[in-house]
Structures are given as structure tokens and as C-alpha cells.
């Protein structure tokens, strides 16, 4: 931000530009700027240097309401969903590793039976994380793979089952129906005392479409957590504000690289800091 001698319209315009450029979106930016002006009036802020911090605190507040933690109750079933290329399979590898580090037994279900070499890719991650894998041959029914994974997990005393699914666009009705079927298998076949987490993987480089993704995936399979990937790039992922505002889904994890340890719990303070 350029330095301003007083709190003027130029300062507010600059902050608006920072938010828009961070993919916060028009509506959420307008909302935030209104709150900012109100807060500045209330707190009688007079130093232009403090305005950015007031905005940062507002954003932090909003995010704190909707941030969550990595699920820590067992047995646990995690279903990973999201659009093509968002980082689901890689995130599963990182998650499997995290739970293995906690001493938990992990099994992954190769629920992407469609994409070229999807199973091979997941298998390499499972090996790296020292997790088991249940897979069927290409083209088989994903629900059948997940069913098998849950049965195997029960038989082997597995603590965490993580289910990979094929990437799909939220507007592809037949594919969203397929996802609902997989979710039904999980809710019907998971152990009665199991915690079920539906994790939506969003790519931080995505613009306004992330909101449509969150809404439609939530409608289909009751998403309970978000992982925001590729935050190691230059995209800020500001769309997550609108996503939590509209869907109330807690942001739990962020992806910050392609390595097995590049998964962190979501920190609202750090995120608000990086955003501005």
C-alpha cells in the first residue's frame, strides 16, 4: 500500500483493489469495506497506518468463526471430493502421512476408477505414507471399491479410511449422482461409531467459481471441511471468505507444496496476514 497522510477515499480504494486482486470477490469486498468504515468510526481510528490492521482483524474474525481442525476421533472415514486437478489425490497422500505420524493405521480407497493412472498415482502415495490401499481394476464401480475398503478396514482394525474420488465439475449431474452414491455407501457401511468427514479440496488459484463448487458439492454430499491447496503459489485464495460466508463449511487444511509434509492446519491469522 502507498503511504497516506490521512484516512481518505484513496486509501479505501487501494484496500478494495488488494481484496479484489486476492479473489475476495465484489460482494464480499463491498461487505468488508462497509464493516471497515463502520469499525473505523466506532474505534475513532485516525492513523492511516492502522486501517490495514483493522481490516486484517475483521477478516480474521470472519475466518475464526469457520475454521476447524483435522478430525481426531476414530474410527474415521474421510471422503475427498472436488473438481478436476484441485489436488485431491496428493492431499490424501499428505493426510495418510499425518495420521501415520500420529501412530494411526491408515487405509486408502482408490475410488477414482476413471482417470488414466489414477490408481497408480494413489498407490505411490499410499506406499510413501505407509498406508494400505484397496483398489479394483480400471472402469469398475467406485462405490464397490469404497464398500470393499470399509469392509477391509473393519476386518483389519484400521483407524482411518481415506477415500479418493475422481475429479468432476459440480455441474456434471450424472457425476454428482455418482458421488452421492459413494457417500451413501460410506454412511451405510462405515462402523456405527465412525466419524465421517467429507473434505472438499479447493484450488487456491480458482476465482469466483469456487463458490459454485462449494455450494453444489455441499448440496450433494454434505461437505464438512475444506482443504485449500496450492497456497505456495501467488494466488491468495480470497474466495474462501465468500465460501465460508455462504456455506458455513469450516476450512481445516491448507496445501503448501507437492511434498508429503506440505499440509498444514488452517490458521486464520496467518491467512489474513498473507491476504493483505
Amino acid at each position, binding site marked *: 500500500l502507498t503511504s497516506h497522510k490521512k484516512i481518505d477515499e484513496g486509501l479505501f480504494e487501494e484496500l478494495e483493489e488488494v481484496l479484489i486482486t486476492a479473489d475476495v470477490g465484489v460482494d464480499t469486498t463491498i461487505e468488508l469495506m462497509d464493516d471497515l468504515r463502520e469499525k473505523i468510526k466506532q474505534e475513532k481510528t485516525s492513523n492511516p497506518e492502522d486501517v490495514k490492521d483493522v481490516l486484517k482483524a475483521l477478516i480474521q474474525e470472519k475466518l475464526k468463526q469457520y475454521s476447524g481442525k483435522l478430525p481426531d476421533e476414530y474410527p474415521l472415514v474421510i471422503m475427498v471430493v472436488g473438481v478436476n*486437478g484441485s*489436488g485431491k489425490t496428493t492431499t490424501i497422500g499428505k493426510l495418510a502421512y499425518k495420521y501415520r505420524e500420529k501412530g494411526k493405521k491408515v487405509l486408502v480407497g482408490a475410488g477414482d476408477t476413471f482417470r*488414466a*493412472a489414477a490408481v497408480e498415482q494413489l498407490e505411490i502415495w499410499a506406499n510413501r505414507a505407509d498406508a494400505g490401499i484397496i483398489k479394483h481394476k480400471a472402469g469398475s464401480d467406485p462405490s464397490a471399491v469404497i464398500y470393499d475398503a470399509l469392509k477391509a478396514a473393519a476386518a483389519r482394525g484400521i483407524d482411518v479410511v481415506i477415500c479418493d474420488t475422481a475429479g468432476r465439475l459440480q455441474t456434471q449431474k450424472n457425476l454428482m449422482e455418482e458421488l452421492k452414491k459413494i457417500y451413501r455407501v460410506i454412511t451405510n457401511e462405515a462402523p456405527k461409531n465412525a466419524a465421517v468427514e467429507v473434505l472438499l479440496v479447493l484450488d487456491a488459484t*480458482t*476465482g469466483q467459481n469456487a463458490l459454485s463448487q462449494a455450494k453444489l458439492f455441499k448440496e450433494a454430499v454434505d461437505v464438512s471441511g475444506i482443504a485449500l491447496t*496450492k497456497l505456495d503459489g*501467488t494466488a491468495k485464495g480470497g474466495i474462501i471468505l465468500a465460501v465460508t460466508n455462504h456455506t458455513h463449511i469450516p476450512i481445516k487444511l491448507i496445501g503448501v507444496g507437492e511434498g508429503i509434509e506440505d499440509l498444514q492446519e488452517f490458521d486464520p491469522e496467518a491467512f489474513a496476514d498473507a491476504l493483505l
Partner: protein
Amino acid sequence: SLSEKLQNVFKKLRSKGKLSEKDVKKAMREVKLALLEADVNFKVVKKFINRVTERAVGQEVMKSLTPGQQVVKIVRDELTDLMGKTSSQINYSPGGITVILLVGLQGAGKTTTAGKLAYRIKKEGHYPLLVAADVYRPAAVKQLQVVGERADVPVFAMGEKNSPVDIVKASMSFAKNNGRDVVLVDTAGRLHIDETLMEELHQMKKAVHPHEILLVVDAMTGQDAVNVADSFNKKLGIDGVILTKLDGDTRGGAAISVKAVTECPIKFVGTGEKLEEMEPFYPDRMASRILG
């Protein structure tokens, strides 16, 4: 849609008779919001609005009986102009082997697009060779091999223990010795701010002098599209862009941002996961889509 919003703005204004500059400013605000909501980059939107405002306060609108329709037409025309022409051909080398490099961020759709391009190039009567130069992503080589099998195009691979630059160099000799006249290189996804990996692409370029370096961009990319495109263009040089996943409902404003900052043609658009699901880029269709 934007057209409807603009008609509404001008409906209220028409009762006053003449159109003022202030009225045009109101209309331009609607255009600005629509473009931002479509993920067009903020700075690109600003420039665009300035240019359109200049035309909108001119005689053609102020004296028109249907100023709303005039403004919509100006916005649509200017947007279509910005998109460039339809230039959906591959620039084949007049003699010798054509080398095409596919580059871009992680998950943009490079490997899938490599298959689509190979399929198209083969249909155009050439002998393409796919090259598996991604040695980092788990099972990336296998993925390209499966894709190549589906497209019925040979895949040159050297496993994951060789450097991508060496693989690409070796693929050129292989192509020469096996009558392949187009070499299509699939590279690993990378961040434009990763100096080591951007340098790797630079080395690849120096080694095989590609005729086309195509930047593969996900159509749902937000404001960051401009940074990515600018970076790849400045550090490597881009000859064209392929926009993927346009079968979704994203408005695709990234297309404008990428075009504006690189001035390179958008050659093709991906409209699905199958081999045939890639179409030529039509500027007017993209303009309509972005305007909603």
C-alpha cells in the same frame, strides 16, 4: 445477465430524454462488476472500462434512440476484439520436426491436453510423438502412456531417473529415427515463481528450440491468471494458450487476462476429459460467455 442489467440502467435513464456522462458512468459500473465477477483481472477491467467509456460518451450512444443497446453492442464488440482472432491451428514447421512444449501450473490439464493435441495432429495427417518429460509427479509417465494408447500415438519415455532436458533431447533423435514429424512434450506442472523449475524449462527450450510453447490454463483461474501468464511469458516466451475445463460453468474471465498480458492467441479450449473434447477458440463465443 449483463445485457439485462444494462437495459435496466438505460430504461430508467430514457425517461429523462438525453443521456449524460453520469448516466454512462452508471452503466460502466455494471460492466465493471460483471467483468470482475467473471474473474477478469482488476487492472485489465480498469483499462477496458476506460476504453469503452470513451466510445460510450461519443455521438453513437448519446444521439441514439436505443442507448442501452448501443452500449451493450460496444461492450460486446470491444470484448470480442480483446479476445483476438480465431487462430486455432498448430504452426507446423515447414521442413523437419515440429516441437511443441506444453507448460503451466499444477493440475491445469497439460497431460490430458497433450493427448487431445496428439489425437488432432494425427487426424491432420502427421506423425506425432508424445514425450513424457514429467519425472516428478507420481505415475505421470504412466498417465501419458495410457493417454497415448487411447490416442494411438507412441509415447517416448525414459522412466523417472533421467532429467527432463535429457529426455527431451533423446526424444528428438528417436523422432528422427522413427519418422515422427511432431514432438509433443508434456512437462511437469510448476509454479511460475519456482526459479529452478522455470530454469529447467529454459534449458529445455535451448536444447530443442520448440516451434510452439503453449501455456495451458485452467478456465476457472481467478485474478492470479495475469501473474502466471506474464511470468511464463517473460521468463520463457509463450506462443499460444490453451484454456481447459470450459465445460464447467466458470465464466472464464482468465481468458481475457491471459490474452491482454501476453498478446498470444488462445488456440484451443478443452471441453471435457475425452480425447475429442477440444475445440477451436471462438472470440465472440468467449465474449458472450464472459458477459453472462
